[in-house]
């Protein structure tokens, strides 16, 4: 092998090795940052992780939204029409947050089984239902998963 080629080979080898290590780290971090989605029924059944954040979705139960006095903490219930989970969120709710509306919340369960949300999402379209929520609703209705494409409210 001539020296120029060898040099180039070493160079490429070094670059590939460096990038492989970095990508390895990135993929490892990727696995830790995945947030799975759970429906209220799954949370009540104890399927959801206890110490790891996840996403919870469903409809906001009518009449359940309750504002704790003198602060920005809101407490409400999220349902998939089978089971409900209580959610607590401190902060400003999105414009489209309403009772009966489909939402997705990010957060963790506390020891009392209350979901402490650090983010609540309600999309900017009043006919829009987060696909996970629509799927979860279908599941609790029919007992089997509805495949895929949900763009509208039931």
């Amino acid at each position, binding site marked *: 092998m001539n020296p*120029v080629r060898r*040099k*180039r080979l*070493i*160079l490429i080898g070094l*670059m590939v090795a460096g*990038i492989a290590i*970095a*990508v390895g*780290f*990135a993929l490892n*971090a*990727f696995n*830790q*940052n*995945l*947030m*799975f*989605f759970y429906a209220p029924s799954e949370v009540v059944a104890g399927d959801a992780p206890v110490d790891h*954040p996840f*996403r919870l979705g469903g409809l906001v139960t009518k009449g359940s939204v309750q*504002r704790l006095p*003198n*602060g*920005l903490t809101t407490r409400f219930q999220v349902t998939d029409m089978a089971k409900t989970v209580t959610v607590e969120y*401190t*902060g*400003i*709710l999105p*414009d*489209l947050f309403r009772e009966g509306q489909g939402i997705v919340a990010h957060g963790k369960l506390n020891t009392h089984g209350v979901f402490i949300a650090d983010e609540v999402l309600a*999309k*900017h*379209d*009043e006919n*829009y239902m*987060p*696909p*996970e929520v629509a*799927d979860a609703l279908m599941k609790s209705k029919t007992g089997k998963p509805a495949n*895929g*494409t949900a*763009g509208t409210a039931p």
Partner: protein
Amino acid sequence: MIPELGHFALILALCLAIVQSVFPLVGSLNRTPSWVAMARPLAYGQFVFLAIAFAALVYAFLSDDFSVLYVAQNGNTELPTIYKVSAVWGAHEGSLLLWVFILSAWMIAVAAFTRSLPEVMVARVLSVMGMISIGFLSFLLFTSNPFARIFPAPLQGGELNPLLQDFGLAVHPPMLYMGYVGMSVAFSFAIAALIGGKLDTAWARWSRPWTLVAWMFLSIGIVLGSWWAYYELGWGGWWFWDPVENASFMPWLAGTALVHSLAVTEKRGAFKRWTVLLALLAFSLSLMGTFLVRSGVLTSVHAFASDPARGMFILAFLMIVIGGSLFLYALRAPGISRGGGFGILSRETLLLGNNLLLIVITSLVLLGTLAPLLYDAFDWGKISVGFPWFNSMFVTFTPLMILLMGAAPLTRWKHQDGGELLRQLRLALLISVVAGVIVALPFAAGTWSAGLAVGLSMWLLTTLLTSAWRRLRHRGGIRAIIADFASRGGRSYYGMWFAHLGVAVFVIGVTFVTQFDVEKDVRMSPAQEIVVNGYRFRFDGVSPHEGPNYLAQRGTVHVSRNGREVAVLHPEKRTYKVQTRPMTEAGIDASLFRDIYVSLGEPLDGGDWALRLYYKPMVRWIWLGGLLMAFGGLLAASDPRYRLRMLAKLSGKAAPADPLTAGGQA
């Protein structure tokens, strides 16, 4: 009548596109000059018919012709005129019409500004662009006709999504599409070169200015989108790692790699295969962006439609384009000659390193964007990738990239002596390390990440200054530099200079706003005062306010500092009359070094409101950096050496228009 004319014009444009994709290409292969010569007139013809179609749709919106379904869905008599025009591309069908219209504009730009290129090459490039045009025109005509009628016609339209009723969003899609579609020129040049089997430095020189201009538009489009999200979504974020944002960011990353790789191919003849692959990749990612956004597989503000037929069409189209181009590449790659060799320490190596890093980042963004779809498809559960991951990944790779970025302009092509490079970089290195450490010390910012960011920005700045200083000495004085800048070549150097400066500015902005912003969500009663980061906010209640097509609750917030009034802000909570959805309009006091950002949350009992009070240091630097990068791209593309042959040909006549500005107006 007018809409039918538009529809008819679209059909004619499709016919022309079919002819354009066949005859010039075949003519170039079997040496039939008359067929080759058809390329340009066909491109002009397509542009004319698409302009007619586009004008017809604009006219339908301006005249509130609700018998056209698309207008009935997105238009409204009460929309201000500017939003009637921008409503044309406010939803699926119209935005695709804009896409092909822009494609035809790029085509006539190619037809007009390539007089110096071999006719055969131009014919092939235009043929390939014609093929892309066929794909999009048939998509429009068969699945999403913007001119479809509705009977009976409604009396009033459904109105443009209020979120899109904004100047930033009126110009964001055209800019972004100029970038997306502009990548098709680099793609077509690459395919044309592969068809001819001749990839040389001339090919790189021809496609370089086009790629730079497309990249510039893409940068501006992304900056506009980010700026819009910041002031319009009402919670002060400027980038969310939303799949749709990623869809525009990935072609940008690949385009950035392509711009640099093209430079190596042009100057040194190296990296040819890599450059071709990047050109294919950049456009494929643009197409995938369109697919992701328009097919409805991703649900977000941007996903207008979830019609499976449309999704399947784009998917099939995507597979033909990517599969076909890679197949052609596989056929031709063995015949591509090797470029010049280079040593381990050389500018080529550093650029190669940066290229690899850019592609690694692109792949990771792609992974993060597609992973939820893959998990869903394989029934592994419904996931989302948290944006801490995207951030940490960025923080890992960007510093490496910036280190290389500082050194590369001072490194020689082919071979660089290590000791000499170190001597040149010594001062820059010293200054940046000292600056970084000082910032990281407790009495300054006190965080290591801020120190690192300032150090890296200083590194970019000082290396750029070193390089400018060396150029100054080499050229012999400031006047020579000005002459150099204004007329002769060297603009690609200054383009690089400004674009890299933009990166430094961007890094500073991102770091300061993420490290030192203060965000307070509070409950306020009228006349209550709250101090955030030294600024005193007095909430003076909310009163009703009427806009052209909305009603608003308008708050008044006085902001003062040290007893002096800084600003009076009027955040609004709007309800649009037709769509009745609430919209938050933030009140922002902007300045170069900090933004004061106030937005209304929701009314609470007793006249209280929930408010967001934000202090955002240096957030403007993020977009300023982006604009500097775009300016750098423009400057580099205007380097006269790309037009030398044309100038020589036209000497005696008036100097031709700059290909750039022409591309921009088209």
